[in-house]
C-alpha cells in the first residue's frame, strides 16, 4: 500500500524528527545562493529550486574540516583525532542526482583505506529524495543513464503528487523505514496520482564519448586545447560537483599546537600536481581539463565501475565562461572515435 505525506503535515514531521534527535536538512535559498542547510521549520524549505546551487557533497565531505589536533612538547608530539560530530541527520528533499553522487563516491572513500570522516556521516544520515518534476537546460541525468526519479543513494524516494499537495512515499532502505516510522501516524494511506517526472533530454551519447576517451590516440588530440581554451581554472565546477572528491591537507597553527585540515582541492589548479623541481605533469589548463574529463569518464569507471558524474549539470550551469561537462561531451560525441 502506497502512503502519502501531505505538504501540510511536513512541519509536524520536521518537529517530530527534531524531537527524535535528528538534525533536519533540506534545500534552502538565501539571498545570494542556495544549499542544503539545517532547518527548524518546514517553511524554510524551498522545493521550487531545480536544485540548490551547492551540492549535497559538503554535508559529507565539508569544504574544510579538521582531521587532528597536535601539541608539541620537548621530544614529544601529542595528537588527538577529530571525528565528525555523531549527530543523526535527515536530508529531506535531496535531488536524485545529488543522492546518486554520494553513492558514486562511496567506493572511492571505501577502497583500501576506509575514510571514516565520510562513512560516519553516511551511516548516520537518512536521505529522503524528491523526484524531479522540473528540469532546466543544464540537467543531464538521463545522459548519464540516471533519471529524474533515480533511487540510487536514497533511503526514501518521494514522488510529488499531481495536485502539488504532498508526496507518494517509497521507502527504499531500513534506515529510511526507521525514519518514516517516527512519523507513521502523520502519513496517509492511499495513492493520489503522481505528477509526471521531468523530461530531461539526452544531451550526448555517453557510450560514444567513453569509447573516444578510451582510445589512447585521443589523449594528445588538439581537441583538448580547443575545448578548454576558455577555461580560467577557477575550480567552480569542482567545488559545486557532487562527486569531485580531491583534497589537500593543510596545517594551521604554530610550532606548539594547531590542527591539520582536509580541504577541497581541484585538478583545475596548476599547483595541484606541481613538483618541487618545478616540473608539472599537467602544466597547461587543457591538460588539467583533460584530466577532469578522463578521470570522470575513463579512470574512475575503470576502477569503480561507475562514472564519476551524476548529471546534475552544475559544472555547466555555474561556469563563468560557459563550458562544462555537457559542452565537452557534446563536442566529443561529434568526433570520430
Amino acid at each position, binding site marked *: 500500500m502506497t502512503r502519502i505525506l501531505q505538504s501540510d503535515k511536513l512541519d509536524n514531521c520536521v518537529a517530530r524528527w527534531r524531537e527524535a534527535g535528528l538534525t533536519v536538512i533540506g534545500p534552502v535559498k538565501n539571498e545570494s545562493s542556495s544549499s542544503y542547510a539545517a532547518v527548524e521549520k518546514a517553511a524554510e524549505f524551498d522545493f521550487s529550486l531545480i536544485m540548490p546551487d551547492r551540492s549535497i557533497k559538503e554535508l559529507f565531505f565539508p569544504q574544510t574540516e579538521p582531521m587532528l589536533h597536535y601539541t608539541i612538547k620537548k621530544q614529544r608530539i601529542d595528537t588527538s583525532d577529530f571525528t565528525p560530530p555523531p549527530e543523526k541527520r535527515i536530508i529531506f528533499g535531496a535531488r536524485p542526482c545529488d543522492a546518486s553522487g554520494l553513492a558514486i563516491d562511496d567506493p572511492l572513500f571505501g577502497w583500501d*583505506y576506509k575514510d571514516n570522516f565520510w562513512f560516519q556521516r553516511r551511516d548516520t544520515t537518512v536521505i529522503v529524495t524528491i523526484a524531479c518534476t522540473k528540469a532546466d537546460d543544464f540537467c543531464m541525468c538521463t545522459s548519464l543513464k540516471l533519471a529524474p526519479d533515480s533511487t540510487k543513494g536514497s533511503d526514501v524516494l518521494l514522488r510529488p503528487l499531481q495536485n502539488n499537495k504532498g508526496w507518494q512515499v517509497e521507502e527504499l532502505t531500513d534506515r529510511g523505514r526507521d525514519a518514516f516510522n517516527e512519523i507513521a501516524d502523520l502519513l496517509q494511506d492511499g495513492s493520489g496520482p503522481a505528477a509526471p517526472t521531468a523530461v530531461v533530454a539526452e544531451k550526448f551519447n555517453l557510450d560514444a564519448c567513453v569509447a573516444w576517451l578510451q582510445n589512447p590516440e585521443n*589523449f594528445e588530440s588538439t581537441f583538448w586545447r580547443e575545448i578548454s581554451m576558455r577555461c580560467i581554472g577557477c575550480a567552480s565546477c569542482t567545488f559545486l560537483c557532487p562527486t569531485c572528491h580531491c583534497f589537500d591537507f593543510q596545517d594551521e597553527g604554530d610550532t606548539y599546537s594547531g590542527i591539520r585540515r582536509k580541504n577541497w582541492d581541484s*585538478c583545475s589548479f596548476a599547483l595541484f600536481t606541481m613538483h618541487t623541481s618545478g616540473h608539472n605533469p599537467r602544466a597547461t589548463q587543457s591538460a588539467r581539463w583533460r584530466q577532469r574529463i578522463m*578521470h570522470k569518464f575513463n579512470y574512475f569507471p575503470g576502477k569503480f565501475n561507475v562514472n564519476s558524474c551524476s548529471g546534475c549539470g552544475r559544472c555547466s550551469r555555474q561556469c563563468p565562461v560557459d563550458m562544462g561537462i555537457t559542452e565537452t561531451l557534446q563536442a566529443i560525441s561529434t568526433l570520430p572515435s
Partner: protein
Amino acid sequence: MKIVARHDEAPGVKTMRVEFQNPTDLELFKQRYRTGMFGLYGVYGEGESTFCVASPETRNEYIEFTFRQSGRVTSALANADIGDVITFRGPYGNRFPIEQFYGKNLIFVSGGIALPPTRSVIWSCLDQREKFGKITIVYGARTVADLVYKHELDEWGKRDDIDLVLTVDPGGETPDWKHRVGFVPTVLEQAAPSPENCIAVICGPPIMIKFTLISLKKLGFDESNVYTTLENRMKCGVGKCGRCNVGSIYVCKEGPVFTAAEVSRMPQADL
C-alpha cells in the same frame, strides 16, 4: 619518529635517520616495508612531504630519507635536529621485486638527488651480495658537490664486487676529479653493460630517464627488464586525493615502482 642522525649530503641536500618511538609501530613497519616504498614525512604546523624510504628492507630498524630543502616542509625538516620528533606516514606503495633479480646481473643508473631510491635497492642487494651476479652502478650529478652519499660512493668504489662509474656534467668537475665527465646516458653507453641476464634500475630527473631509456634500448635491454620509480606530487598516499595519477595509474597505489614497459604504456603527456 625521533631523528637519531643527520648528514649534509650536498648543498641543500640532507639525509636524516629516524627511529620509531613506539615498538608496535616498529614491528608494523618491519612487517610491511619493502624496498621501493615511500612515506610522507612531516612537521606539524608545516605539513607533509613525500620521499622514498632510502634505507633498504634489509636494514629495517630505522628509516633514512634524503631530501632537498626547497619549501616550507623541507625547510622545517632541514632545521630539525638530532633528538627532534617528526612524523612519518607509510610505508606506502609497491616494491622492487628483488627476489626476481636473484642470479642476475644488475645495473643501477641514477642522477642527482634520485640516488636515494636507487640506493635503497643497491643496499638491499649488497646485503645479500651472493644472490646476484655482476653489479654495476652508474651515477652522475651536475657538479661534484651535488653527488650525494659521497661516503658510500667511496665505499662502493673500494669494493671489488661492484663496478662503480661516476660522472659529472661537463663543467661540473673539479681539478682533482678523477672520474668521468659527461651526461649519464652517454657514460652509460660507454660503460656498455651487457643486457644478457641483466636487470636495470634507473632513477633520475625526467630528462635523464628519457635519454637513459633510449641508451638502454640501444644497448639491447628489453623494457620489461628495466625498472624505475615515479615520484609525483602526493597528499594522501592512499588513492583518494586525486593528483598522483599518470593516466589511469595511481602512482601511490599501483607504483611508485614500474617497469619501463609499464611506463611506456602510460600516456606520455601526463608524465
